[in-house]
């Protein structure tokens, strides 16, 4: 393997990792704060993609500039957060916080099953492709290989902005501190007047919107079709568990490991590319049971 190929694999890996990270971010945020592993996250991802395609198709058919696709992605993500994330938390999850975690997980599994069919009823079974956002940014050529600016530059940039933005939000803003306080000790937070219900609702909306944003950002690069969420969710699980549940920086690093592992595998041994995320997960958890960045829960007696 020469340097060129090494760099090419690096670029591919980073572009892929960026997208995986954005999706996993919402999942890990929700888990970190609410201790719920949201299986329906995959559906939110898919619906974010579908909504983007629908919105872009509609507005661009009115003759508006393709650059409008970018704000529309944000709109789609926010719609997913508010119209789906909100009701899921408010109507369903809120009623089961005191139940065993298996039931919480199954509720989101049920929502996943329902949303899979909802997608099909609304958007049908034919794949959609809406690449105007990607085309608007054009290509760059590196070592004679053409990349899209969208995948090589925009996606990693967005991922980085989200990583830094969320860190800043959680550590530096009052709202972020309220969320962290609730995460650490719900009862204590309530006793000092934090409305934990509102914090949870907000977190879930933001997490769902991040899932939707992942789908929105993925939409110009891939076919939007039924079942796309089911694949993404397992990959996100792998990222989140490997990173340590609730670990944002860890998720970024893990996504990078998985992205690079996969792209190098395609260059070196394509047959194992699909195994890479799970192998990384097992190997990491073998050495560090709490995930890369997780801290072991001390048992007090």
């Amino acid at each position, binding site marked *: 393997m020469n340097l060129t190929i090494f760099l090419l694999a690096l670029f591919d890996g980073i572009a892929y990792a960026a997208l995986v990270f954005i999706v996993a971010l919402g999942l890990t945020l929700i888990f970190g704060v609410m201790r719920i592993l949201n299986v329906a996250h995959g559906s939110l991802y898919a619906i974010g993609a579908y909504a983007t395609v629908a919105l872009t198709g509609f507005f661009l058919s009115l003759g508006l500039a393709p650059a409008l696709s970018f704000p529309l992605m944000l709109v789609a993500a926010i719609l997913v957060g508010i119209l789906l994330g909100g009701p899921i938390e408010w109507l369903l999850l809120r009623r089961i916080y005191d139940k065993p975690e298996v039931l919480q997980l199954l509720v989101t599994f049920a929502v996943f099953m329902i949303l899979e069919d909802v997608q099909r009823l609304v958007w049908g079974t034919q794949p959609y492709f809406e690449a105007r956002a990607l085309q608007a940014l054009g290509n760059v050529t590196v070592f004679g290989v053409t990349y899209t600016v969208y995948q090589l530059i925009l996606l990693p940039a967005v991922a980085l902005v989200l990583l830094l933005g969320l860190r800043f939000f959680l550590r530096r803003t009052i709202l972020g501190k309220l969320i962290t306080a609730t995460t650490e000790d719900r009862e204590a937070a309530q006793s000092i007047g934090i409305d934990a219900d509102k914090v949870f609702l907000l977190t879930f909306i933001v997490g769902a919107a991040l899932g939707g944003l992942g789908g929105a950002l993925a939409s110009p690069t891939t076919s939007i079709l039924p079942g796309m969420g089911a694949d993404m969710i397992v990959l996100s699980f792998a990222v989140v568990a490997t990173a340590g549940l609730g670990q944002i920086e860890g998720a970024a690093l893990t996504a990078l490991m998985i992205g690079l592992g996969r792209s190098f595998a395609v260059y070196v041994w394509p*047959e194992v590319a699909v*195994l890479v995320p799970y192998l990384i997960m097992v190997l990491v958890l073998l050495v560090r049971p709490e995930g890369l960045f997780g801290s072991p829960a001390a048992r007090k007696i």
Partner: protein
Amino acid sequence: MSIHSDAGAMSRSPAEKETRMTAGTWLAIAGLVLLAAVPIFAPSLQLLVNLALAKGLAVLGVTVLLRAGQVSFGHALYFAVAAYAGAFLLAAWPGADLLVVLLAGALGAAVSGLLVGLFVVRYRGIFFGMLNLAFSMIFWSILEKFYHVTGGADGIRLPRPSVLGMEMGRHDFELVLFWLTLALVGGLGWFTLRWLASPVGQLFRTVKTNETRLEYLGVSPRRALLSGYLLSAVLCGVGGAIMGVAQGVVTPEYAWWIRSGEMVFIAVLGGAGSVPGAFIGALIYEFVRVFASAFAGDVWQMLLGGFLLVIILFAPGGVVGLFERVTRRGAAKGEEAA
């Protein structure tokens, strides 16, 4: 300290309830007899019931783990390992005996259960669930990827095994398989109940409530969990092997994560932790699924999802819990009247 009550009669612990519930035993026997009559009175349902019971055995495996408070999101692994073990055996030795095929499946599940189990019993809660998921997805990827060995996504066809040296037509074979499945449901169900009530099973169950005390009883919580994990893998394996033989084909979909989710789904639907609930849940699930996909076309997933939500929100004890609630209320009323 001196609350006087005839405690023995009033509040029995789960362990005692299981073995002394003679009414429950009779109910279970009645249920098995009723099912045994399916091929005679409703032959069109025979295969469906057979598949549901096979799935029920796998769900029983998940149920066992729920007793220790652990949820596996990867038990489809053992389902698939056993089914593929059976398929490979039949490919290498066409016309192998049904019992040998099932035994090979159970053995495959046991061996893989031991290997994976040694590793995952170090984890609890969500990590336990996720690691099991990871292992099942690795196996799934291997099945998909190593096409030349595993047949890839189309899987492997299983020629019909012989039964005690006899070659059989589909109809006869399916009857034998059906009754054999039913016998295994009865036998393994009974064994699981006994095991859960036994000292080893009780130690296993305490992983759910207090591992510190378990350690201070001189018992390794990991080993206690491993014993139940092995049982659960074997149960899943027997279910998977039956499923493979009944379907005549095994595909990587057997190991797919949604399958594992489905098993947990059914376990909760039937009544989390309940042995008969595993089979009742599987029967209900398969019937809803088949009839929904026959009559509601492409929204069967939505119906099942809605069904699950209703159960969790309004009857978290599952169908068995619902049944117990009704009978208890009935009993209470009876007492009042008397």
